[in-house]
């Protein structure tokens, strides 16, 4: 047998599961990337339940016309916190959680480059989220929407402290994001296993790498805007107050210069997860690694030139709108190419319909749909009609849930056995998939129609016009289905932790290095890694007769 095949693979029975039943203090003081990864994931899960609960409250209020279940003040705080929570306290921590746990494992490193910075970043995110939610105890949450437009965010229109907590909470959480991003960049750049060149890392790692640069570039405008609004609110500066010479539009520019790249910050890691899932469950290498990797860089660069498509109705003029229509359409090319790449990966494969793959296939169709309605918003006249209606609500939920959250779900079902050593119950998992997918499409497909018949977004109630009541009611039923799916998911996780079937080292017949890592080795991931010769080291070792490096050149 080939000398380069690690001995551990020849004896797959000898797997011990890391004992994680440590005391709380061990977790609080941890600088281990796996523990911090788990804490990030738990943070995301807790806020997912909170943010999801807020969504359920909103959908309950909107189930029937002229409803008085929630007051306008309560509704406005809840929808603001729903958006803010999902973006900053669910999507980002979940990405950082998977990144933290998986990036070192996938590149053959024993930890992140800066373990203490890693712990610091996690705690800043947690404290930022805590500050944000403390606002409810301090007289009321922020109530100007997650993009918090000026001058509605000024002291004279929102005099409670909610928006102060919003600004400072996001600044604090942002420190965590930037710290994490630096950590990922250095780790991926310097701590890859011997032989693994930068263009040979698994695509999830590549996406986290690109994502980290995106985070570094996109948080400064947000932080600047948050500092400026705090100066306006606390010291009566005049950055955004048009009555005293400020500019309301300046806020929109700064916010969307952050806000649109942030959309890709949430999306790219999902692309990475799906790239891993598609190649594993199609039992074929990803089709055109180079295109997926380079198109992600294109997305990251173009992301900074498209923000005005959130402002096509702000009256900036035809020339500006045409320019940003062009750039926004341009970004559809590298995104569309990826869908083709994934489809081509499946083509000719031997597809296994495990739960992560099921999320992947649903994602492909939902993402294509959401991508097409996205192109509709780059077509300025269609945007003029449909922006700020329920059509846009439907569109971005197809991207954020149908794209990003489906990616995180796929990642959870894919890597849960690696993280805990236990398999999730297959039957329960399939229930989660079907309930969540059907619930999601029930909730949001019909919202496109609501937008087309004139329902603006962010209304706490609506008049009883034809179609409004019935369509909203259907949407609400879908939301409850998603809520039930989330509860089953939490139950499945708890159940598997207690008495799940042992997963072993490599339950999916994986091809990347994380499946090689020895779970019995405690905090250290690897003792020795053989020379990496291709993008699929595990494949090479499992198929010494047909290794990638014989077919490909790198």
């Amino acid at each position, binding site marked *: 047998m080939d000398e380069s095949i690690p001995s551990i693979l020849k004896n797959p029975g000898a797997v011990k599961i890391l004992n994680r039943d440590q005391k709380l203090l061990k977790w609080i003081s941890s600088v281990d990337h796996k523990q911090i990864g788990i804490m990030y994931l738990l943070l995301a899960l807790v806020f997912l339940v909170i943010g999801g609960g807020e969504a359920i409250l909103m959908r309950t209020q909107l189930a029937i016309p002229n409803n008085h279940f929630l007051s*306008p003040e309560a509704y*406005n705080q809840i929808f603001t916190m729903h958006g803010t929570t999902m973006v900053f306290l669910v999507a980002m921590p979940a990405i950082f959680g998977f990144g933290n746990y998986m990036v070192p494992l996938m590149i053959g490193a024993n930890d992140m480059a800066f373990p203490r910075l890693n712990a610091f970043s996690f705690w800043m995110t947690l404290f930022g989220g805590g500050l944000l939610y403390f606002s409810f105890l301090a007289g009321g949450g922020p*109530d100007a*929407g997650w993009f918090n437009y*000026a*001058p*509605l965010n000024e002291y004279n*229109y*929102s005099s409670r402290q909610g928006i102060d907590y919003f600004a400072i909470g996001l600044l604090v959480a942002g420190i965590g994001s930037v710290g994490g991003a630096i950590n990922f960049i250095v780790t991926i750049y310097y701590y890859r296993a011997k032989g693994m060149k930068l263009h040979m890392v698994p695509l999830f790692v590549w996406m986290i790498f690109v994502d980290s640069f995106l985070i570094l570039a996109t948080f400064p405008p947000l932080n600047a805007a948050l500092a400026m609004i705090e100066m306006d609110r606390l010291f009566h500066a005049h950055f955004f107050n048009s*009555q005293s010479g400020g*500019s*309301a*539009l300046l806020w929109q520019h700064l916010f969307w210069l952050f806000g649109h790249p942030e959309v890709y910050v949430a999306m790219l890691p999902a692309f990475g997860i799906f790239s891993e899932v598609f190649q594993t469950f199609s039992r074929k*290498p990803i*089709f*055109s*690694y180079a*295109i997926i990797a380079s198109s992600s860089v294109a997305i990251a660069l173009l992301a900074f030139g498209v923000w005005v498509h959130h402002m096509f*109705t702000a*009256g900036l003029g035809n020339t500006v*709108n*045409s320019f940003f*229509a062009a750039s926004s*359409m341009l970004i*559809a090319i590298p995104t*569309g*190419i990826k869908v083709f790449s994934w*489809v*081509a990966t499946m*083509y*000719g*494969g*031997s*597809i*296994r319909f495990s739960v992560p793959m099921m999320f992947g296939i649903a994602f*492909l*169709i939902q993402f*294509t749909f959401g991508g097409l*309605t996205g*192109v*509709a918003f780059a*077509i*300025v*006249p*269609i945007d*003029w*009609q449909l*922006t*700020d209606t329920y059509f846009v609500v439907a569109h971005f939920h197809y991207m954020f849930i149908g794209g990003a959250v489906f990616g995180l779900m796929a990642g959870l079902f894919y890597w849960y056995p690696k993280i805990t050593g236990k398999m999730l119950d297959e039957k329960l998992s399939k229930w989660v998939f079907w309930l969540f997918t059907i619930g999601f499409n029930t909730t949001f497909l019909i919202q496109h129609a609501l937008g*087309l*018949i*004139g*329902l*603006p*977004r962010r*209304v706490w109630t*609506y*008049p009883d*016009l034809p179609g409004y009541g019935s369509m909203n009611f259907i949407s609400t039923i879908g939301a409850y289905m998603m809520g039930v799916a989330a509860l089953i998911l939490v139950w499945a996780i708890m159940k598997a932790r207690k008495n799940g079937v042992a997963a072993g080292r490599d339950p999916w017949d994986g091809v990347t290095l994380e499946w090689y890592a020895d779970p019995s080795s405690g905090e250290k991931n690897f003792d020795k890694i053989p020379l990496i010769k291709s993008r699929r080291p595990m494949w090479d070792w499992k198929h010494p007769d*047909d290794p990638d490096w014989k077919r490909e050149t790198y």
Partner: protein
Amino acid sequence: MPRIGFLLQSVLHSASVQSKEINHLFATFTIAAVLLLLSVSVFIVYICIRFREKPGNPLPKQISKNNRIELLMFLFPTLTIGIFLFLTIRTIHHVQQPAKGQPDVIITGHQWWWEVYYPATGVRAANEIHLPVNKNLMLEFHSADVVHDWWVPEFGNKMDVVPGRNNYIWVNILKAGDYIGACSEFCGAEHAWMRIKVFAETDSAFQSWQEANKKIANMPGDELAMRGMLLFQSASCGSCHRISGTFSNAFIGPDLSHVFSRSTLLSGMMPMNEENLQSWISDPQAVKPDAKMPNFIFSKDSVAAIVHYLTQLK
């Protein structure tokens, strides 16, 4: 496309030259998008059936690239996008033409109502906007406070109402009738009840509406109405509202000179009638929480007098 059966309004029903133009592009795009979505979906389903794992299957061929397919993957979206970019820029310039001269109507967004002003005649109104048909009208938008957004789906494009900026749109309404819309940018607590109602009228009907609204407000017709007017003046209602021909001359709240000629109250929240006026004036915060009108704690008789006076302002 005509109004679809049971639906009152829809962006797909074009009632103006501008929305016709937009919907033409929308329809073209929808056809392309549906075709693309269907072919991708069908292809994925086909792959799932054809290439599912079967027991005894050999491992698939490990193909990871194909230059010709990759080129196609790039060219197809690029060409499609190119076509739609061209159509987009063409339509933008047709719909949003340069501003020219004095606007026909100046619409000012307030938290949470619309002020309407016709510069040519000096007529003022609130919430219900009367416009003549078959005339290319320039609507200009001002904001008194935060960002609002003007949108009547059947007229086509919406436009943000941004403080410190005078945005405008053109609209050439094709058919007389009532149209509804709503503020579409989140503007605070009562954003949901900042609805728009447009009465598109033939030129003669529009002229006679203007004539009626140019007139000074009716003087109280009886003793009770007189008491209502005196109460209105003395209770400082006039610090916010205007009733032409009286001392009340402020523009913070809606102009009430011809308030009872309107069909709805509180920006489309409820029909205009005595009962609704009475509950509103008795306790504004119970009817529309957070609206800027304070509770004056009038006695029942006073409310009745004021309401009686307002009903005469037609």
